[in-house]
């Protein structure tokens, strides 16, 4: 052992073997298929968001008087500002899509069942945090659509019994959108939510490592094939390849379809056609279909049911004597989700 190595080993008393034992979890074979790596995908995109977000924060100013101008400056004046802003936008879109797909994969393979119920709840918290981050980030642009989207969303919370009006006041910093609102959105978007997501991710990954990944065997796999492979380096390589492909895709999209800047927010005039970000199309259409109270309470009920789904699923299995009941419910919910999203995307009003 060299002197430097000895010096280091004395100060960090972990041997290579111990480190390998600690981290080299055997990974089930099904994770060689890329669509089972959808958990690592949002984690990688989250990293992209942190890096691009920090870069954008060097120029962004969270005040109504200067927010829009600072975004314009980033987009048109700063070297590669358009690229990093577009990367941030596209990575956000991909991250939310990946989180939703990851959750659907976990749902349809029933990987949330005992003893992984708590990790499903943590995953739901991460989904909510990701959606909130998307919403607050979109609002920071201070263009017409983002301003009115923020107004609609914050007024929505008024319909939530008891805590709704307080939550609205805390988020907006007043009764309605005012000069304090943007800085609140900014601190929630750039500090509170990312810090919470990092903590949740640590717990999420720790629980995955403690329980191990859910074992899935495919019918076409030979019985004598080894069921596992190593995390280091095989699975890490898969994740790095997924990351590289994503970065190429993000760069291509950022160049071909860069983030645009709509008209500046006008608090007196709602645009004739108003749409939120695509991941809120369902809620937006739902609000058009039903009264405010019903729409908000039913959404709250659905989200609440999603949080405790492992226990609902267990109850449903006992009552119906079917192990696949959740699959049928999931298919119906997915069709409704996609259907309402398409309807909202196609119709002007």
């Amino acid at each position, binding site marked *: 052992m060299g002197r430097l190595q000895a010096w280091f080993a004395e100060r960090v008393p972990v041997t290579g073997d111990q480190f390998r034992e600690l981290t080299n979890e055997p990974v089930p074979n099904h994770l060689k298929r890329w669509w089972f790596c959808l958990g690592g995908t949002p984690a990688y995109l989250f990293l992209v968001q942190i890096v691009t977000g920090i870069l954008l924060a060097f120029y962004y100013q969270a005040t109504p008087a200067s927010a829009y101008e600072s975004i314009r400056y980033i987009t048109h004046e700063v070297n590669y500002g358009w690229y990093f802003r577009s990367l941030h936008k596209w990575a956000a879109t991909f991250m939310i899509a990946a989180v939703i797909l990851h959750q659907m994969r976990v749902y349809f393979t029933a990987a949330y069942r005992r003893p992984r119920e708590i990790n499903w709840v943590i995953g739901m918290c991460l989904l909510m945090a990701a959606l909130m981050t998307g919403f607050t980030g979109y609002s920071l642009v201070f263009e017409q659509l983002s301003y009115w989207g923020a107004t609609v969303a914050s007024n929505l919370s008024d319909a939530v019994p008891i805590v709704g009006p307080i939550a609205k006041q805390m988020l907006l910093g007043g009764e309605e959108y005012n000069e304090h609102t943007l800085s609140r959105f900014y601190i929630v978007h750039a500090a509170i939510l990312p810090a919470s997501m990092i903590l949740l991710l640590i717990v999420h990954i720790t629980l995955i490592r403690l329980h191990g990944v859910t074992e899935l065997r495919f019918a076409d796999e030979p019985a004598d094939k080894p069921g596992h492979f190593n995390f280091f380096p095989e699975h890490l390589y898969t994740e790095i390849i997924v990351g590289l492909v994503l970065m190429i895709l993000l760069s291509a999209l950022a160049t071909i379809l860069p983030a645009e800047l709509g008209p500046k927010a006008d608090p007196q005039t709602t645009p004739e056609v108003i749409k939120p970000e695509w991941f809120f199309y369902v809620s937006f259409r739902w609000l*058009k279909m039903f009264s*405010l109270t019903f*729409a908000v309470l039913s959404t709250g009920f659905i989200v609440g049911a999603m949080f405790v789904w492992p226990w609902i699923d267990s109850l449903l299995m006992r009552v119906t004597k079917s192990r696949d009941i959740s699959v049928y419910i999931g298919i119906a919910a997915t069709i409704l989700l996609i259907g309402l999203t398409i309807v909202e995307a196609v119709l002007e009003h």
Partner: protein
Amino acid sequence: MAESQHDHDKESSSTPTDIDDDGSRRDFLTTASTVAMAGGLIAGYGPLAAMAGRYLYPAKDHNDAWQYVAIVDEITREESLIYQSPSGARVVIARQGDGNTAGDFVALSNVCPHLGCSVHWEPQNARFFCPCHNGAFDATGKATLGPPAQANQSLKQFPLQVVGNQLYILAPLVSIVEAEPRSNMARCSHAVREA
């Protein structure tokens, strides 16, 4: 040393009951000190958390003020006013009664009561329309279509008061962005036509 030996002898000669007493006393003291520590932490950090919550909860601002609109006799049933406050908020002010009290007038907000978008007047349909969730209101501000109609909502009314023969409105003074410079008053021959 002799004293220590004596203590040891005393300890080793304890009966099982004595040990139980010691154990339960120790348990009690452990529990009591844990509770006291938890209480101390709550008493110490609780007020700090409450103060932080109060700090984050917005203070009441005094954004609204009474603003002069017009001489009451100048507003007739046939002709309404579109008033624009310094914040840019557009308000339709119309006469409802024949008297000259505040109750004889109505000041309709252009903010949809559903989720806060701004409505605009559609002359071809004779209605206010909210583009966010397809809400519609008639000329008096009553909801006729969409989620506001389902919830039986109407356009919000601004408070009015008459001082002498002058009509005043309680409306916001400032906005988060500068209102476009335009005349703060316009007359309409139709009760709700926008200027």
